[in-house]
């Protein structure tokens, strides 16, 4: 893995970089989105349709090794030759992170000094560094985060301090057990305590890692608490190594993270939208302005539309007129509305394609804004105009 910063803004921490990973056909520009997966493949998008997404933007996937505990032994994965071989995704970059924010959630109460605990579909699992390293060495991802003890925002100071101690110890275990690591990203936790965040970042920065995985977000802290915490961490971390974070999914959070200096994001937003029958429609205008495109539609706002609404029963137009995704090029809102009504899986497939495509284009526009030096204006305009035209917005996540 190779990473280089191409342009950094002085006004904020935002930067554009280039990431070369494994056998990806072309270098990937950051800030970039890692696609959420279940057992290595997207939830609904078939491998045949993955190439229809913008490339190489869509070539980064986030995989949780814990998914495979449900039915695939590490020896079998080894025999097959690793994740890339097993998933038929030889030209993709895979980042292995235990937490996937959808189904593998850190359970801080059950963590011990021996290992981190996760709530998964196969129950509560205690993952020790040794087991984790075994999984990683069999799976051979391009990037992997060290094992972290993530805690929610409301734990005691003592518990928070313990989590930082454990995370650092496990990082050392990971490094020593697998020194020829693909590309280890050191995990940085610390909850909502500025001191702990700083301490953790300092310690991790001392280790020989290829990048940083900033965890502990999306676990109960307020969106306004985050900038300070992020800044605390970013000020210490060296600029030339990439930063990956978990738990920042909404567009506002993405912009927040980019402003602080994060390069890679996972996102469960797309999955939640898809399950709810929503399709993203917010404007991808370069200025960040969010014109209200569909204000008169019931069940919609300017950011997304709910295709379950009966208003779309006879709507023979695509979700977005100038969207080049497979869904918008081939299908209409009426068809997706029908599929949702009859509970057909194809609805989720089509929605996931569109939403992923749209979000990847969003990142593309952001990168353009950073290159032009207009990122702060973009962010300002985006945030202000996004919620302008309605009051009672409820995001179901």
């Amino acid at each position, binding site marked *: 893995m190779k990473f280089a910063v191409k342009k950094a803004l002085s006004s904020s921490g935002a930067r554009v970089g280039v990431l070369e990973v494994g056998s990806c056909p072309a270098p990937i520009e950051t800030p970039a989105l890692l696609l959420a997966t*279940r*057992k290595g*493949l*997207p*939830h*609904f998008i*078939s*491998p*045949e*349709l993955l190439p229809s997404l913008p490339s190489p933007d869509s070539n980064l996937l986030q995989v949780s090794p814990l998914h*495979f505990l*449900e*039915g*695939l*032994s590490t*020896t*079998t994965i080894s*025999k*097959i030759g690793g994740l890339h071989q*097993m*998933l*038929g995704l030889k030209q993709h970059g895979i980042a292995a992170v235990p937490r996937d924010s959808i189904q593998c959630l850190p359970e801080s109460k059950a963590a011990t000094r021996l290992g981190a605990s996760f709530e998964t*579909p196969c129950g509560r699992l205690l993952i020790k560094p040794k087991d984790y390293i075994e999984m990683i060495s069999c799976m051979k991802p391009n990037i992997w985060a060290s094992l972290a003890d993530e805690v929610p925002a409301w734990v005691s100071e003592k518990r928070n301090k313990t989590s930082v101690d454990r995370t650092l110890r496990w990082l050392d275990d990971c490094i020593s057990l697998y020194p020829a690591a693909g590309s280890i990203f050191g995990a940085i936790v610390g909850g909502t305590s500025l001191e702990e965040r700083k301490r953790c970042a300092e310690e991790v920065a001392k280790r020989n890692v290829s990048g940083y995985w900033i965890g502990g977000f999306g676990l109960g802290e307020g969106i306004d608490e985050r900038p300070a915490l992020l800044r605390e961490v970013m000020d210490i971390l060296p600029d030339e190594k990439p930063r990956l974070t978990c738990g920042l999914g909404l567009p506002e959070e993405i912009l927040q993270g980019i402003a602080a200096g994060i390069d890679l994001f996972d996102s469960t937003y797309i999955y939640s939208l898809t399950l709810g029958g929503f399709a993203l429609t917010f404007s991808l205008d370069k200025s960040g302005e969010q014109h209200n495109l569909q204000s008169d539609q019931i069940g919609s706002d300017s950011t997304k539309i709910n295709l379950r609404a009966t208003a779309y*029963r*006879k709507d*023979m137009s695509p979700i977005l007129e100038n969207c080049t995704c*497979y869904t918008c090029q*081939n*299908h*209409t809102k*009426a*068809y997706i*509305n*029908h*599929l949702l*009504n*009859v509970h*057909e*899986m*194809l609805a*989720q*497939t*089509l929605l996931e394609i569109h939403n992923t495509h749209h979000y990847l284009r969003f990142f593309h526009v952001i990168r353009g804004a950073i290159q032009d030096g207009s990122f702060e204006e973009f962010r300002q305009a985006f945030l202000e105009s996004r919620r302008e035209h309605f009051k009672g917005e409820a995001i179901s996540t």
Partner: protein
Amino acid sequence: MASAERQLEEQLREAGNKLLDPPSSVDELLPLLDPPPPQNFRSPLFTLQSTLTPFSSPSRHSLVRFHPVMRNSIAIAVPLRLRPNISNTLPHHKFRPTCFHSHEGHTISCVPYSAPQTKPMALHFEILGRFNRARAAQLTLPHFVCQTPLFMPVGTQGTIKGLTNNELERIGCQIILGNTYHLALRPTSELLEEAGGLHNFMNWPRAMLTDSGGFQMVSLLHLADITEEGVTFQSPVDGKPMLLTPEESIQIQNRIGADIIMALDDVVKTTITGPRIEEAMYRTLRWIDRCIAAHKRPHDQNLFGIVQGGLDPELRDICVKGLVDRNLPGYAIGGLAGGEDKDSFWRVVAQCTAALPEDKPRYVMGVGYPLDIVVCSALGADMYDCVYPTRTARFGTALIPEGVLKLKHRAMADDTRPIDPTCPCMVCKNYTRAYIHCLVTKDAMGSQLLSYHNLYYMMRLSRNLHTSIVEGRFPKFVCDFLQTMFPKGDVPEWVCNAMEVAGIDISSCCAPFPSCQEKYSSDEIGTNDIHMELRLTHTRSVVVY
């Protein structure tokens, strides 16, 4: 004079009885006594005989030699004309000489025969190759040109579960099936009409077939009741009493706009016996006329009639004759695939395919197991549909040449082979059994991948059937197929019997069990070889002078 009058009176009464709503005047009734126009059709007695007596034992060599010109006949636009084999000098059913016009303009033999074209047809059916009863053809429909034998995946509610259109095209699907009952409920046929038809609505560029809705109703609804008027049922949406008449079914299908539409038939389970079957068969014939009358788009939608009659050969024959009289673009064999024993099943198919016209497609409804499809193709059927491949995929079962592979099984958890090493589909090229095992029944992607593979398997089977017939190696294909599926030689008896009638020698695949080979003793095979060869030279299915 009086006796002639009495005879006429008798005939009139008989004809009148057959009609549900007999005309009041004798003048209207008289034309019904006229014999029907000559059809490409064999007498019932003949077909019964043909199903019950086997073909003369085929030699081990391929029976069919194709003239090189005919191999190129794919480019021909002239429809195939067939001569009915009326004079039957040999005790067994034999093949008819066929007529081709090659692309170079050569005319090869034959007595041209044309069936009266009293109805417009929106399809073109051209046989490209044969082996005994099996045939490979090109079926030209308004939206797509298809190769038969073919399998049609079922896309109940306007989608094949989980697969996108471009995946379906990649797999090679030619026709997909839509269920009228489901579509009429949601999103309603009126909406589909507004959208420009189901093709437009789901953006499927190839061909489509809709069933009449009758089968779903009797199988899905406990309170469905069939009367002369139609099928009365309780709407599952709001509980209102509803009535599906033949006219209504055709109207809905006209709005949906598929290339092929099915007549509403009175379908009964084959496990039922008694007068109900006869009633259903006659009612199907009465309903076909109502369907024909109600059909507003004969120029771009083909109405297929459905042969009913349970397992009774006489009823089946009456039904076939009645439908053939109506000169429909194609015919379906219905009422099967409902739990009857296989031995009865193949006999009904054999009888119907023997009796239905040669130059029109034959669709065996609900037939989906690969073995059944091979047998029915050998007997002369062209089109099939079934939910089996996609449904079994959702339960974690994959279709492979050896049979089925249950991917849920623990043994699959560390099997690093592909599902089918011989299959070139995306799933078999990229994924192992172990990986699919960890997905199936737990994640949507698992059923997507398995559906993909299973449908690919069915399409591959269809393509293989077509090309092996066209290329003159159908018997070998059947033998290889059976050998792979029954490596110990335990081919089921019903398959052996059916293949005998189909004139395909599968002795090489069958273990020496008495049931399979009792008809021939070893010396019989030896001494008759030469005689058989001589006889067979006169009876090749494709004769080139």
